[in-house]
């Protein structure tokens, strides 16, 4: 295998907790410089996988490398080459911004002459240069998130693991955060990110969908939409969404609520839309519109999960 091109790869990776298989023989390869999105609902095994790759959890079975180092035997080397940030934004709340940076800088053995420069970089990146003396607990979610990221990559690791990095952060901060991730990816860093936000998944170069410990789909966002959505998606706007859902499910049509509308997955949009309209009207519901749409990743996701 080519270590220059592959940043993370693993096969047969398994983790069993008691009689529960959290991660079940999954295999993946992530290329250098890629933004790789690891998607799945809560409890699907995303965090467990990331923890095994970072050396926080020992795999029950399987093999793999991170940055060319064996995950079973070279955890110490891996730790020098990765940055890891979890959804908890693990910082010391009772230390100041600057103290947090200094501490992690020391733990990562950032060379003395680079410490200052890296500190300023983090403060700048997180946009908190003027709050360096403030206690970390006084920062808002978005700033804390970026500071946590900064502290996790003080040592400029080539591979960055982000475990639901945007949970609990407002939309603008999320957008800014992704801008940062893009910038880092352009610098050649590999980013392995888990999320359950579908809009974020669209930002990734490649995706893997994990469900109940197994990878059920893999590919670029576009490929996933094409490959896994051979059927059409109809967006149905009705006044009584819940009643309509019931009607459609009774007539055997795969339907899910998307905000205020329904998405029905059908084999042929042209034929089915008329049939759907009729059955809804017959049930006494008022149909505002039915149209064929380009499926979103969320549609793909819902379909894939329903299939498995």
């Amino acid at each position: 295998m080519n270590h220059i091109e592959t940043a993370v790869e693993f096969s047969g990776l398994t983790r069993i907790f008691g009689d529960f298989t959290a991660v079940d023989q999954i295999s993946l390869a992530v290329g250098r410089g890629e933004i790789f999105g690891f998607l799945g609902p809560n409890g699907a095994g995303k965090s467990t996988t990331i923890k095994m790759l970072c050396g926080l959890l020992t795999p029950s079975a399987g093999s793999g490398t991170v940055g060319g180092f064996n995950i079973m035997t070279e955890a110490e080397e891996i730790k020098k080459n990765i940055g890891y940030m979890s959804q908890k934004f693990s910082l010391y709340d009772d230390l100041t911004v600057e103290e947090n940076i200094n501490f992690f800088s020391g733990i990562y053995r950032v060379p003395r002459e680079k410490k200052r420069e890296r500190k300023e970089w983090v403060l700048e990146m997180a946009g908190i240069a003027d709050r360096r003396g403030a206690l970390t607990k006084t920062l808002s979610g978005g700033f804390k998130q970026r500071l946590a990221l900064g502290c996790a990559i003080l040592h400029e690791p080539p591979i960055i693991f982000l475990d639901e990095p945007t949970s609990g952060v407002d939309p603008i901060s999320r957008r800014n955060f992704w801008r940062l991730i893009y910038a880092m990816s352009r610098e050649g860093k590999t980013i392995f990110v888990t999320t359950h936000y579908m809009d974020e998944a669209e930002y990734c170069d490649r995706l893997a969908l994990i469900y109940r410990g197994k990878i059920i789909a893999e590919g670029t966002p576009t490929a996933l939409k094409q490959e896994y959505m051979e059927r059409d998606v109809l967006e149905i706007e009705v006044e009584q969404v819940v009643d309509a859902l019931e009607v459609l499910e009774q007539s055997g049509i795969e339907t899910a609520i998307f905000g205020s509308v329904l998405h029905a997955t059908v084999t042929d949009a042209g034929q089915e839309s008329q049939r759907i309209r009729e059955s809804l009207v017959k049930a006494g519901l008022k149909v505002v519109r039915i149209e064929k749409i380009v499926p979103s990743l969320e549609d793909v996701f819902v379909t894939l999960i329903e299939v498995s």
Partner: protein
Amino acid sequence: MFERIKEMVVKEFSQVFRDRRMKAIIFVTPILQLLIFGYAVTTDVKSINTAFYDLDHSYESRELGRRLEASGYFIITGTPSSAKEMGDLLDRGKVLAVLQVNKGFGRDLARGVPTEVQMIVDGTDSNTASVAMDYSTRVINRFGKEFGTRAGIQRVVKPARIDLRSRAWYNPDLRSRNYNVPGVIAIIIMLTCLLLTAMAVVREREIGTMEQLMVTPLKPVELMLGKTIPFALISYFDMALVTTIGVFWFDIPIKGSIPLLVLSTAIYLLSVLGVGLFISTISRTQQQALMATFLFYIPAVLLSGFMFPIENMPVAIQYGTYLNPLRYFLVIIRGIFLKGNGIDILWPQMAALLLLGVVVIMTSSLRFRKRLG
């Protein structure tokens, strides 16, 4: 390695000194405990409330009562006129002792006929009771020698209904404070060290920074040292604080060698830090750590000889105390403070403590590493 440990220690100190609760544990608790044991909790027996049940009303009986009071150990606070009233005073705890002088005491004394007085002591608090009996014996004997020149007074001390177990008093003339303060130092170090170590580790686990640290190249041994060195230093600081106040405020003597004290404290801290780490491996939350700390701390203090002598405990429990680091350290610290013992006398305790410490810290480290892995 040193760089990282230094970072950990610096961080730990910044956190501790920014946390009100931690600061209270470090500064307030030791001083408070010292003041309580220095002033309030005294096992010295004096001013025992005593009833004088005088049926004789003679010059001699009144003189005996006066002598008893003059000794300084007894204060006559009641003069019951009937046996029922006397019993009542004891029952209600108004008095702890009763001196009963029967009719004919003065007459018999004058005649030189052997006579009796009765001292009844409330044996509920066995320590005080036995001391009171000792003191009264002395007073009455002296009185008897003086007044009974023509004949002896036979004195009978009848204990109250409760069985009195006499206890070998450490040193009746010594102020109990001198005995308590070194012990207080030992238990303060234990509490501070246990609490701080267990809480600091568990807190990191709670807020998720432990996980964050585990993905850094920080080695488990560095993490462990970084988490224990600050609290060992703080424990030393507390020891110095309490000792200074003890010596300069309460006039507690240090007869032995201070370097020996410092050395044996280091040995003692091995076990205490070990237990603290162990607690951190079995606790998920800070509340659990707090509970576990006290679950260990209270029996450790009660079964150490700090308040109750180990020799008085059931044999099985006596064997159990061999696993209690405080047991050894109390002997060492009291020996150094009060008796001026050197290593020639204290080495068995020190060796046992060292062995215990090494075993505890090794076990805890292994568990700690495993828990991280």
